[in-house]
């Protein structure tokens, strides 16, 4: 009874607000949030290099709670890692534990938005600043501080921030300051409001302060990076371009050289009904900026380099993913999408879609400062290069053709072919390993048994003479209202080591209803790399059960 009265006292104000809110929808008091927990039970499996863990069971969990009332909102996030799943950033056990790593409060009206606490932000394409969260990679470099966004006039926006980035359960050493401004002329100039011609410009500036205390090098306390961007569009055509410059930033990433950094990217798209074209190019030199000059891997990154290669979802196509190279890369991508009309010869009754893409990435051309200083020597300018200089070393190339076709009300297929070149030593950080040349094929077919029941089958194959040789994958997935069941086997039948020709068999099922999902799988996971947006993490081999629970409320 006492507990009930206590709860009543605590929640009475909220209940009264609910009573007042009728007829005043803008003052609605809302509570929302989400929860996710991923647990894994590990068995030792020496054949695939899967280690046993002392804890037997590891887990990553988090829960977000948000309240909003009118123009105000606030939120908090709980996270627990008892202990962190294998493969997620956890050097020295830094990530293990439970706590409240994120909390924030926000006020927003027509022109002004103020946030204090933890927040995520991106300036332009991210070349100067991208603070974001990617749970699948274990990345969370939220900024703890204050941010203000202001609309000066419609189409003219400015934002500024100051803070420190999250570093596991602590904060980074460096302090970030940043400002971004943007003018979208179509919004600003009334006569252009409805024009098919679109034009906008923007600029950003970010500065990091970190006290220098190195006994060997004179290091800059303040490192600044700035960027200018523009976007032009007309009807279905759109062009986005951005150039960024970073002043000297000796760091662990660049081996403590004093060379400035530059990045340039341009992205052109054209789309109309049934047709889409994307052309992109990116040139990068020494453009890694972090809140701590000694941080490595995915810790406290400030700058972000958008990926130039395509993100693949089929397992064997994503086997050798490309990781962005902030110390120097030039890349180009062309993607073409076309839908043959329904009723046409190639389109058939329901239409046929074809997607072609090609991407290629090289190193940039670097020359030594002089005969006695190797490229990249610590405590020097590093090397010479010039904007858009492209080197001869191929890092990555893929050519992909994909055809999707609906044959009838019940049958749908997707067929893909990919040719791949992968510079293993550069992209995996090894030496002496052969570069991978592979051909990969995918055939996927879905049969709708009824409106509510469907069966999907998939066969993928990779043919290569390098690395672990050929693979073949078969998968069956059955879906019914609220449930799904899967079984797949990934077999390394072509491994040069016959004893390593392992079947990576997996079975699982899941239940989904509304905002709730629960999934249980059992099987073997091969060692590999997982990338999202050009940022990657190593996935260790494992054998065991995996349980995932998520809910949105």
């Amino acid at each position, binding site marked *: 009874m006492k507990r009930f009265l206590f709860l009543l006292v605590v929640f009475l104000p909220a209940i009264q607000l609910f009573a007042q809110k009728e007829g005043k929808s803008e003052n609605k008091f809302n509570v929302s949030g989400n929860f996710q927990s991923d647990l894994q039970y590990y068995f030792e499996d020496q054949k695939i290099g899967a280690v046993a863990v002392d804890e037997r069971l590891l887990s990553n969990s988090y829960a977000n709670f948000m309240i909003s009332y009118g123009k105000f909102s606030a939120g908090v996030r709980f996270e627990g890692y008892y202990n962190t799943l294998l493969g997620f*950033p956890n*050097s*020295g056990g*830094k990530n293990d534990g439970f706590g409240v790593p994120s909390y924030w409060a926000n006020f927003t009206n027509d022109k002004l938005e103020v946030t204090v606490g933890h927040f995520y932000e991106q300036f332009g394409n991210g070349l100067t600043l991208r603070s974001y969260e990617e749970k699948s990679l274990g990345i969370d470099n939220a900024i703890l501080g204050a941010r203000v966004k202001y609309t000066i006039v419609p189409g003219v926006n400015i934002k500024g921030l100051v803070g420190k980035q999250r570093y596991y359960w602590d904060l980074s050493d460096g302090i970030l300051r940043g400002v971004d401004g943007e003018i979208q002329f179509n919004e600003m100039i009334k006569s252009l409001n409805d024009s098919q011609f679109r034009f906008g410009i923007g600029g950003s500036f970010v500065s990091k302060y970190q006290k220098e205390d*190195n*006994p*060997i090098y004179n290091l800059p306390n303040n490192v*600044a990076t700035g960027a200018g961007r523009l976007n032009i569009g007309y009807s279905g055509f759109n062009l986005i371009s951005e150039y960024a410059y970073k002043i000297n930033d000796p760091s662990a990433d660049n081996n403590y050289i004093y060379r400035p950094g530059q990045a340039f990217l341009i992205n052109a798209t054209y789309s109309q009904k049934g047709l889409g074209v994307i052309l992109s190019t990116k040139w990068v030199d020494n453009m890694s900026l972090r809140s701590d000059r000694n941080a*490595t891997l995915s810790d406290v990154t400030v700058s972000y380099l958008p990926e130039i290669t395509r993100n693949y979802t089929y397992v064997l196509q994503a086997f050798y993913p490309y990781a962005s190279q902030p110390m120097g890369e030039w890349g180009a991508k062309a993607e073409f999408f076309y839908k043959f009309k329904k009723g046409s010869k190639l389109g058939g009754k329901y239409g046929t879609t074809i997607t072609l893409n090609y991407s290629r990435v090289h190193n940039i051309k670097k020359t030594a400062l002089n005969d006695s200083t190797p490229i990249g020597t610590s405590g020097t300018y590093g090397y010479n290069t010039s904007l858009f200089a492209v080197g001869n070393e191929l890092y990555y190339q893929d050519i992909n053709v994909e055809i999707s076709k609906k044959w009838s009300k019940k049958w749908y297929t997707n067929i893909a072919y990919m040719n791949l070149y992968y510079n293993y030593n550069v992209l995996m*950080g090894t030496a002496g390993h052969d570069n991978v040349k592979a051909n990969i094929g995918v055939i996927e077919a879905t049969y709708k048994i009824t409106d509510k029941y469907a069966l999907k089958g998939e066969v993928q194959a990779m043919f290569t003479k390098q690395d672990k040789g050929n693979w073949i994958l078969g998968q069956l997935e059955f879906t019914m209202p609220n449930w799904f069941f899967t079984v797949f086997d990934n077999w390394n039948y072509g491994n040069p080591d016959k004893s390593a020709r392992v079947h990576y068999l997996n079975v699982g099922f899941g239940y989904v209803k509304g905002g709730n999902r629960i999934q249980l799988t059992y099987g073997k996971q091969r060692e590999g790399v997982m990338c999202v947006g050009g940022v990657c993490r190593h996935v260790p081999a494992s054998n065991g059960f995996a349980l995932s629970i998520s809910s949105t409320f």
Partner: protein
Amino acid sequence: MKKTIILTFAVLLAGLFIVSCDKIEEGEYLKNPNNSQPTPADTTGQQPLLRKVLILDFTGHKCGNCPKGHKIIANLESAYHEAVVPVAIHCTPYAIPQAGTAFETDFRTEEGEYLVGYMELEGLPSGLVNTLNPLSISSAPNEWATMFAQYNNVLPELSVEVVPTVAGGSLTANVKLTAEVACSRKLSLCVYVVEDNIISGQVDYESDPETIENYVHNHVFRTSLSGALGENVKDDNQELAKDATIEKSYTKAFSSDWNIANCKVVAFVYDTETREVLQAEMVDISE
């Protein structure tokens, strides 16, 4: 009005860019520009650096980024001499030997692989400067120099004396800890054997070609006389009075793989609870 607004914030942006960055001019990159390495510390007539700093360098002969750490340690040794006590622990798959190549030498040890698991290392190079706390691991060798510098001219709470002797194929290390000030910490003692001047292959991404066949490996961890993490020598918080001593002796057979003439004994005492290394010492076995 609109033009004024736009011009104002454009000027603000440009102004911020100009004032919030530090440009280091060419020629001012190094703190000791007269030599390519820092000038040796002049200890004559001055109080020498008393606190000696342990650097555990987790490395591997196929780790192409690891020579960066070796160079940083060499730079620190050049400047601070005996104040630097380095131990290179070859470990992980980067240390696996390959018969018939420049990487035939097996530098791996049981203690080294144990420490990899204990420290939850995620890659190489990884370093620990004056601590055995896994949370303090640094993957940036230039940061090791910064960490080292904080112990400059710091007086140690304990001193470590080591007297190694060799007899009948065994190495004995007699270690004496002396409290320089009253000490209430719980203490642990570690005694390692390291070897210098081992010529073998090493990958160095900054070298052309990347494989250096006759690389000189120094401070290579060979074994521990006291276990990978040592042993407790004071397991309570009772005060150890100033000038009080703790003496320990360890004996182990030395391997025929070692060149004993190039070997040294490294002994260091650390706070069992905080894992901070309180003092380290390194002596030639031939002494």
